[in-house]
């Protein structure tokens, strides 16, 4: 694979050659100084040490820029700083005195340790902009790790991204690597884009979860590149604007914005202005750091201090992977035994079977004979498109072994559908089945399998020869495997070499296990604390393992896993990862020598087991006439209006992806009568906008309003007050409100409310009704009946942060619907200022009707739930309780997951359709939120129904769900059910969700077959 080792910074090197030095001015008269230094009469050196690069400037006594340079420091911060200073000393200072200051996140520790003045980098940026670009209103600066916005006029304010949104330049680098191009190529092709895809902008990890599948579906790289730039823009605005408009003269600074014109363009388009990227935009921070003036330093002394600098703090180290060489040798010897049998492919071989695993980042192909012996295999990065790789493999196979007789072929992985359609592969199987099939061949009594691939971590427990439980990572912990690779590449190593560095590390760094973005910043901290590359490497391997164990499997002891553990997936080829896994659990495991090929091997075994006469896979001749084209269109068959990627192949075959249901493929409408979510949506849609004599209030259709709409609709109707209801959310609505979100880590359902309220304001409403509610209805299922803090109080956030609400009114009174006697009085008081002629009597009547309406609505949902259950049972269909909160009915929030489940021929009902069927029961946690009480009750009920399963919808950032997921899992597992969790956020791509659901269904099928 071609590795774009230098990434975005590769370009920096080209630039360097062209404009390293400014020509010193000759003669006695200096032109007007670039920077008017007030105090300093000596030269000034500024060093800007960022997460990936180090930039240096030297200004002369008049503030003229004499010297500037930057280089990538590859974590060797001190060494590079010394080299730079020596260079400056010898070529610029030449014995003249100079002052020195350091800025940048990675320079903080160094500056403190060596007693060099430190200037915070955003502050430095501001100083520089004030001097060099007076009249600037807003600065947007993107770096390798951090994003910053500085507002200079109308109240100076400087903001940096929060912890969850790190990694701007690093993210672009990573995405370029995924597409196997350089960032400047990415910039070039983005100009040719014709459309943009929706890409999650919460953070780099989430965005990647959207981009990876797009690549695998064959979407045009130019469109993806453009979409990535827009994702960066949205992430910056959503995270940093926080209600302040970005307007006026906007200045772009920092590496990514300096070098990527399309990124600037995306900002321009989104903000509706034309920002400028000034000369020396890369050096503003360094220049700014010198502006505070400073005393002359003895440069030799500084260099000497730097040479003797040892980080004082140290970092938290963990035990080394191997205590000694013997341990390492024993480890190598033990694992060298797990090998697969191989054979030669000869004319005598007979029928052979092909397995393809089109994974998120790699494509694996395996050819086996009838005995399951390995004949040929290939493991290659998919470089963003698996099709040519499979094509090349087949061409080579047919050319080199003209006698080959393929008896069957199967494909698995993210690219399953695509590859199956392109090459007419016989079978497509879900990954869990493929991996289990392969592992069982290796170790017939295997009882636990863990697979760490590029993007996903998959674990399954085997009981009585069937998959008993499945653990799949959610978005936050995805991409660990490929992170290791990108990280290695960024430091200039191959992933193998990089991982091997860790084998002999003496003090591995503890890098945490939250997600790769956090790991990235932990590395930065470790670098500051003086960690060696070996220890960072080992630390990363350990982090990947901890992520799998503590976040995905959620186990603390090996006994919960099993006796016979097989580990597989490309990431386990790294001995450091394997060792970390054994060490963390304190057990020995089996790693097949074809760990990375196990999915493909399993697919091949599956193909073999099908005992076909002949495979339908494309022949040599068909392959010769093979063509492949990609088109993107909007589906337009329903309100989702999915963006479809259509792959067209020779012979009129085509493959459609990007769809959330089968309609564009089969042209058939899925049976929506078995989808209670659809029913709920239809019911809610019935509560449309109305007019009234007394005026109109706006109701934003978010969070609890998605359940209480019937209540308020009726309530205001009875009072002759019209209502305008915002529609179900869509992407556009979200973007409309994103600039006023103050907390980037709040859940997506809450964020959407900004769009709803903005929509109502745009419609000219000046009175919006959205009350605060600490308490929910008491349904008698829990210990208390709270709302979660976000549902309870989000109106406060809207009132405090949406500029449009400063001139309009938001009624956000604290109301308690759980107290029907007190409620009318309270709301009467709240409404009087706006509707002075309201009488308490009227309000009482209206409240009565409203309570009734709400009850009727809930009853309708329950009844329809029963109808669906009966119908499904009559037709022998499975039933899935898609358990979330009432607001998960919103199509933008659930991303059409209900429809996806229905498309599998499974009936979908909601948690509130069954929660009333059980009595209150003891839970191991405090059962104090009404919505979650329904969830526990639904889980309890599902446990008693053989044909029902529960899938829990979890919103990212929902702190409450950190508690409910474990509890729901234990309720279900106690009843012998498989727990499935789907974490949702902005991510729109359903690839991972599909795998999860198919795995669940496959496991249930298999369990039934085994007669359990």
């Amino acid at each position, binding site marked *: 694979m071609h590795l774009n080792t230098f990434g975005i910074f590769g370009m920096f090197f080209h630039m360097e050659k062209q404009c390293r030095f400014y020509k010193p001015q000759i003669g006695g008269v200096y032109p007007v100084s670039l920077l008017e230094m007030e105090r300093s009469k000596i030269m000034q050196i500024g060093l800007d040490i960022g997460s990936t690069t180090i930039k240096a400037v030297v200004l002369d006594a008049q503030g003229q820029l004499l010297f500037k340079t930057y280089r990538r420091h590859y974590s060797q911060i001190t060494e590079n700083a010394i080299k730079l200073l020596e260079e400056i000393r010898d070529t610029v200072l030449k014995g003249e005195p100079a002052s020195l200051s350091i800025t940048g996140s990675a320079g903080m520790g160094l500056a403190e340790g060596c007693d060099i003045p430190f200037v915070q980098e955003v502050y430095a940026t501001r100083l520089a902009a004030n001097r060099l670009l007076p009249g600037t209103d807003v600065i947007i600066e993107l770096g390798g790790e951090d994003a910053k916005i500085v507002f200079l006029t109308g109240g100076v304010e400087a903001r940096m991204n929060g912890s969850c949104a790190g990694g701007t330049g690093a993210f672009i680098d990573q995405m370029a690597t995924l597409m196997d191009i350089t960032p400047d190529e990415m910039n070039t092709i983005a100009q040719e884009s014709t459309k943009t895809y929706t890409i999650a902008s919460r953070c780099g990890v989430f965005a990647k979860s959207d981009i990876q599948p797009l690549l695998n579906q064959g979407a045009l790289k130019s469109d993806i590149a453009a979409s990535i730039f827009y994702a960066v823009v949205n992430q910056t605005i959503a995270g940093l604007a926080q209600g302040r408009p970005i307007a006026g003269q906007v200045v772009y600074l920092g590496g990514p914005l300096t070098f990527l014109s399309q990124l600037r363009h995306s900002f321009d388009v989104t903000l509706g202005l034309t920002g400028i990227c000034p000369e020396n935009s890369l050096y503003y921070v360094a220049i700014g750091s010198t502006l505070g003036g400073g005393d002359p330093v003895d440069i030799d002394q500084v260099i000497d201090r730097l040479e003797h600098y040892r980080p004082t703090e140290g970092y938290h180290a963990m035990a080394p992977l191997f205590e000694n060489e013997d341990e390492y040798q024993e480890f190598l010897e033990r694992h060298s035994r797990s090998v697969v049998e191989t054979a030669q492919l000869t004319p005598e071989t007979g029928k052979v079977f092909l397995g393809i695993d089109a994974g998120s980042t790699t494509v694996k192909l395996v050819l086996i004979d009838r005995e399951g012996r390995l004949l040929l295999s290939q493991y290659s990065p998919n470089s963003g498109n698996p099709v040519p790789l499979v094509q090349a493999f087949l061409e080579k196979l047919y050319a080199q072994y003209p006698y080959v007789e393929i008896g069957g072929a199967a494909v698995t992985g993210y690219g399953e559908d695509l590859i199956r359609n392109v090459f007419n592969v016989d079978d497509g199987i879900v990954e869990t089945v493929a991996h289990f099939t392969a592992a069982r061949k290796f170790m017939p009594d295997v009882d636990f399998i863990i697979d760490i691939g590029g993007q996903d971590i998959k674990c399954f427990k085997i009981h009585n020869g069937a998959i008993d439980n499945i653990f799949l990572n959610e978005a936050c912990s995805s991409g660990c495997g490929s992170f290791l690779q990108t990280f290695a590449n960024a430091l200039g190593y191959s992933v193998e070499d990089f991982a091997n560095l860790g084998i002999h590390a003496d003090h591995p760094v503890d890098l945490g296990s939250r997600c790769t973005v956090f790991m990235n910043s*932990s590395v930065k901290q470790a670098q*500051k604390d003086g960690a060696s590359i070996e220890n960072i490497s080992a630390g990363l391997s350990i982090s990947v393992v901890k992520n799998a164990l503590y976040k995905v499997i959620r186990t603390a002891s090996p006994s919960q896993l099993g006796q016979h553990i097989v580990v597989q997936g490309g990431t386990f080829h790294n001995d450091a990862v394997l060792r970390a896994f054994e060490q963390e659990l304190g057990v020995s495991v089996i790693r097949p020598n074809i760990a990375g090929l196990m999915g493909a091997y399993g697919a091949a075994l599956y193909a073999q087991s099908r005992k076909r006469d002949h495979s339908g896979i494309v022949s040599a001749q068909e392959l010769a006439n093979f063509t492949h084209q990609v088109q993107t269109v909007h589906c337009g068959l329903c309100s989702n209006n999915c963006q479809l990627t259509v792959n067209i192949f020779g012979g009129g075959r085509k493959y459609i992806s990007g769809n959330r249901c089968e309609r564009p493929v089969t042209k058939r409408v899925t049976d929506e009568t078995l989808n209670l979510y659809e029913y709920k949506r239809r019911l809610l849609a019935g509560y449309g906008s109305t007019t009234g004599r007394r005026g109109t209030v706006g109701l934003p259709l978010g969070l609890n309003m998605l359940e209480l709409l019937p209540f308020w609709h009726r309530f205001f109707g009875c009072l002759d007050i019209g209502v305008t209801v915002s529609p179900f959310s869509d992407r556009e609505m979200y973007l409309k409100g994103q600039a006023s979100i103050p907390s980037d880590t709040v859940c997506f359902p809450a964020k959407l409310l900004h769009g709803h309220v903005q929509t109502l304001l745009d419609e000219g409403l000046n009175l919006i009704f959205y009350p605060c509610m600490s*308490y929910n209805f008491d349904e008698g299922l829990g210990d208390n009946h709270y709302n979660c803090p976000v549902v309870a109080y989000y109106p406060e956030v809207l009132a405090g942060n949406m500029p449009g609400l400063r001139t309009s009114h938001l009624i956000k009174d*604290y*109301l308690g619907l*759980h107290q029907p006697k007190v409620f009318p009085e309270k709301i009467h008081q709240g409404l009087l200022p706006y509707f002075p002629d309201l009488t308490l009597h009227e309000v009482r009547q209206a409240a009565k009707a409203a309570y009734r309406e709400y009850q009727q609505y809930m009853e309708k949902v329950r009844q329809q739930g029963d109808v669906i259950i009966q119908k499904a049972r009559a037709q022998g269909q499975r039933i899935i309780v898609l358990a979330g909160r009432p607001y998960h009915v919103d199509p933008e929030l659930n991303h059409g997951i209900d429809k996806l489940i229905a498309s599998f021929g499974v009936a979908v009902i909601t948690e509130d359709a069954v929660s009333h069927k059980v009595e209150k029961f003891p839970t191991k946690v*405090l059962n104090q939120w009404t919505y979650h009480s329904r969830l526990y009750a639904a889980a309890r009920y599902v446990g008693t129904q053989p044909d029902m399963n529960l899938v829990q919808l979890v919103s990212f950032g929902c702190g409450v769900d*950190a*508690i409910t997921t474990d509890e729901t899992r234990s309720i279900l597992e106690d009843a012998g059910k498989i727990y499935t969790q789907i974490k949702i956020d902005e991510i729109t791509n359903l690839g991972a969700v599909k795998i999860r659901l198919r795995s669940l269904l496959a496991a249930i099928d298999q369990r039934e077959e085994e007669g359990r």
Partner: protein
Amino acid sequence: MSEPIRDKNGRILFTKEMKKTHTILVPMMLPIHFGMIKNVLLHEGYHVELLQNQGPDVVQTGLKYVHNDTCYPALLVIGQLINALDSGKYDLDHTALIITQTGGGCRASNYIHLLRKALVKAGYENVPVISLNLSGLERNSGFHITIPMIRKMVAGAVYGDLLMLLSNQTRPYEVVAGETDTLVWQWVDRLSAQLNQGKGYNMKALTQNLDAIAADFSQIMLNRVPKVKVGVVGEIYVKYSALGNNHLEEFLQSQDCEVMVPGLLGFVLFKTDNRLEDHKLYGTGFWKSKVCGILMNYLTKMENALRQAVLKYPQFVCPTPYAHMKTLVKDMIGYGNKMGEGWLLTAEMMELLEQGYKNIVCTQPFGCLPNHICGKGMINQIKLHDPQANIVPIDYDPSATKVNQENRIKLMLAVAREELAAQQEQANPSAQVTESQRETVSVG
């Protein structure tokens, strides 16, 4: 040891027998306050030990046994308790744990349940856990909270608040380095001794002590050089606990700042007042509200005693009354906002601004639900009210790095220093502040 006695839900009870035989481990939050509260429990005949274990092992233990998306305080408190059990220092058959339980709509009410789950996971399922609460949750025959105990604990909290308040105002300016801390710990010892003897908590003794403390602190020689003044607010655990906030106060002091951290009493008042608000808003809990009304009066008296002691010395900034704080946020956020720190957090920021602490670190665990609203969600409004407000929200989490946190705080401090310099400029337009112009203040 025999099988522990359990209630019908399987909870291990802390029996009368255990009061004699068991050591109760208390997780640390505020060293001064908890040190004194520990003495109250000792006097009541409980063998208690305040945990001092810190560092990455505590975090690692937490990560191992608690769902990693749970809030950081839960992870740390549970990590600290299990890490202590792991240490081998305690006889597991004679050790119990204690943890507070608030019972509000935030995740914190579930800490005790998460702790029990974690104990099972870690193989300590027979270690009893006591819930420390005032709501009557989870009764134990061997552990009773009596009214005198409450009074003593409140006294401990008031003393803690005063010591924290005054020491924060003298430490940065003290002429004799270390004088402040010496005085703090002298007083902790004296007050602990009193509490341990069952004294020092009635209004008379309390007033005497508070006055004496304030008098002592007023004697400390100070050199009042202008310093950046920073207020710290936030979720209660990460605001106070050095383990939770990566030693934030130490860091700010190392950056030459004066730090102000609002006291614990305000939080107690707030939680009590919530019952009254609930009654006002929803008509619920009539009798509870009556009881809380009495408690409210008592606490207000205590608050007043503390304020009166401080007000005698005008050089000290005195906390404003709870009732005043409440008016500060009247048009900003509803009084029904009660989960977590609720409106009090917003009010604390407003109070700090009013007192001249324009620079504020708003701390919260990563993903803290209430702080999305009353912390980060209110900053824009606060800035509209006071454009000089310089607030930085900082998230704490096992994986959030110190370098990132400190970098953001340094940004806030850079702006603060600029503002301070501008103020100095205004005060002395002729020249920059020089050593000679810095006055030495000593009161006494």
